[in-house]
């Protein structure tokens, strides 16, 4: 069984979600839970670090779609960082780059949040 792991770190006012392994229909609910926790804790600035993510399916992408409006309505955002090429290709294929900001490194994403403050 493919494994998936999700955890959250706080850096200043921004939450960084680290995702690891395979994010598909089976594991999407884990990510959803993580977002639910952030929303109920009023943490709306989110960077998702994909450094250790091996695979993402549409169901995984759907979780980001489901929460991005909530974050933006509350002066936050979901930004993506550290994507491997093949993972980025999937985002690109489905047209995500028009709607989300992608960064090579999570620090770049954090810096962008700082600028917006």
């Amino acid at each position, binding site marked *: 069984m493919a494994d998936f792991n999700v955890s959250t770190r706080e850096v200043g006012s921004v939450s960084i979600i680290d995702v690891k392994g395979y994010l*598909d*229909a*089976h594991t*999407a*609910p884990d990510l*959803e839970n993580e977002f639910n926790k952030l929303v109920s804790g009023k943490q709306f600035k989110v960077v998702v670090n994909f450094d250790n993510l091996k695979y993402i*399916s*549409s*169901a*995984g*992408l*759907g*979780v*980001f*779609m*489901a929460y*991005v*409006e909530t974050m933006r309505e509350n002066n936050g955002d979901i930004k993506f960082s550290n994507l491997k090429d093949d993972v980025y*290709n*999937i985002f690109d*294929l*489905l*047209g*995500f780059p*028009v*709607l989300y900001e992608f960064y090579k490194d999570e620090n770049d994403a954090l810096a962008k949040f700082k600028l917006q403050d």
Partner: protein
Amino acid sequence: MHANNNNAALRNLAALVDFSNLINSNLDPNFISNNLIFTCLSKFHTSRAALAFSDGQNVLRISSYKGITDQTAKNFPEVLIGDCQSSNVLKNYLEENKFSFGKLIETPRKKIGVLFLGKKLTGRDYDEDDKSFLNTLLHIASSAMENSLMVTELKEVNRNLDAKVNQLSSLFDLSKEFSGILEKERVGKLLLYSIIGQLIVTKFAVVICEDEGFEILETRIPPEILKTALSGCSVKNFTEPKTKKNIEQKFISISKIGIELVIPMQIKGATKGLILLGGRTNNQPYNQSDIEYVSSLGSLAIISIENGRLFKETLEKQRLEKDLEIAQKIQSNLLPDKAPYMKNFDIAAINQSARQVGGDYYDLVKLDEDRLLFAVADVSGKGVQAALLMANLQAFLQSICKQNIELDQASNLINDLVSENTTDGSFITFFWGIISDKTKELIYVNMGHNPPLFIRDKKIIKLKEGGMILGVMPTIIPYKSEKIKLNTGDKIILFTDGITEAMNTQGVEYSDERLEELVINLSASSAEETLNIILNDVKVFSKGAPQSDDITSMIIKVG
């Protein structure tokens, strides 16, 4: 002069070789276009140039330009490449924007596009040398352009293929996942995530059809607004996907809340649910491939939801059966284990339920040292409802027995009690009596029950005295009791219609007559023997036919 000409030719040649090397080393159409334009600008001393390629429909589309504003480029008229020499609209556009002429770029196989050049800044016209140089230039450029355009096209095809592969893998992913999930809420969530992730949409809802209405499974539209919008729609109208145009025309209430795509979720052609999607965040319309994707996902999801429902139903049924088993145990505990001892009476009784729980009932209650109360009842209806009423009846009977009142009085009372406790037209046929060891007397009241057979000296008397069926209405006419002085050898046969109405495979009933003929000759048999003979006869008669009603019988023989 001669040397000058040579020099110029050499320069031209060098520029051409340079240009050829450069553009053939690169497959990026922008790179090639830009180089072509820059080369022309410098060679012909003009400040403006534009390059238009023919698109899939042979319409010219500006792709690169220098020296004109973006707006000017945007204003480029829609002209077929075949009409580029004759179109007046194009001619006007060129004049207006100070272009000198357009030159077709073609390969031996097809026309690729047109290069437009502005007037020379020197004020001179393009001469023959210029034109022949341009021809050579475009000749070199054309094959490089065709290659690069082909590569671009291939890339596009590849990308579309990738997208299709991605959709398929996502479908595969979900089909695996759905088969293991039974909660419809979770199915709904995964369904949505897979759709909104794939198609980039944030406004959505999933509803399940229930009778004529809809149950909302997932929604990003306020539920009340969604319900109102859907209230005017019938499931029957959604047998196929509805696109934006169709929704705007026929489902205005849904269109008003921003829904642009409605996909039915179907099982065997019947619509069981709907997926409603708003516009895509990237403003792209939904194409056929998207609709197929959502439809496939919808089918997977609805089957999973249906399976979950069936599974739940089965569980519920199993639980109910378990409950019935318990009820049966409770009920059989309500019946007396064995007849209490009476010095002058030999008593046997039996109850066989056609179902797990039945509506027949008999009881034997010792009132004091001397007297025994016996009762047989058949509650209308079957199953749990009948069993519950029967349990009620027993409770009333037990408590009335402790009151020490006359049997006719007790009958009035028990009828009032049962009437008050039945609301749905249920009733009970009931017979009860008291026998006394000391006086060897029988007193009984029949409340609408099949008259028990009283047998004395091979003659049958039917015990009919009493009154109305139990439980139909409160007692208005008091019940009457009958007292009979008993002799040794007298026998009382009590039974329910499960015996006399038992059917054989031909649909013929066992009948009262057959019972009477059978028992009239059993004066030598004990109560137990008589009971067994009756049961056996019924069994032989109805052989092969299923028992349709509860069978209850009680035999009292006077010693």
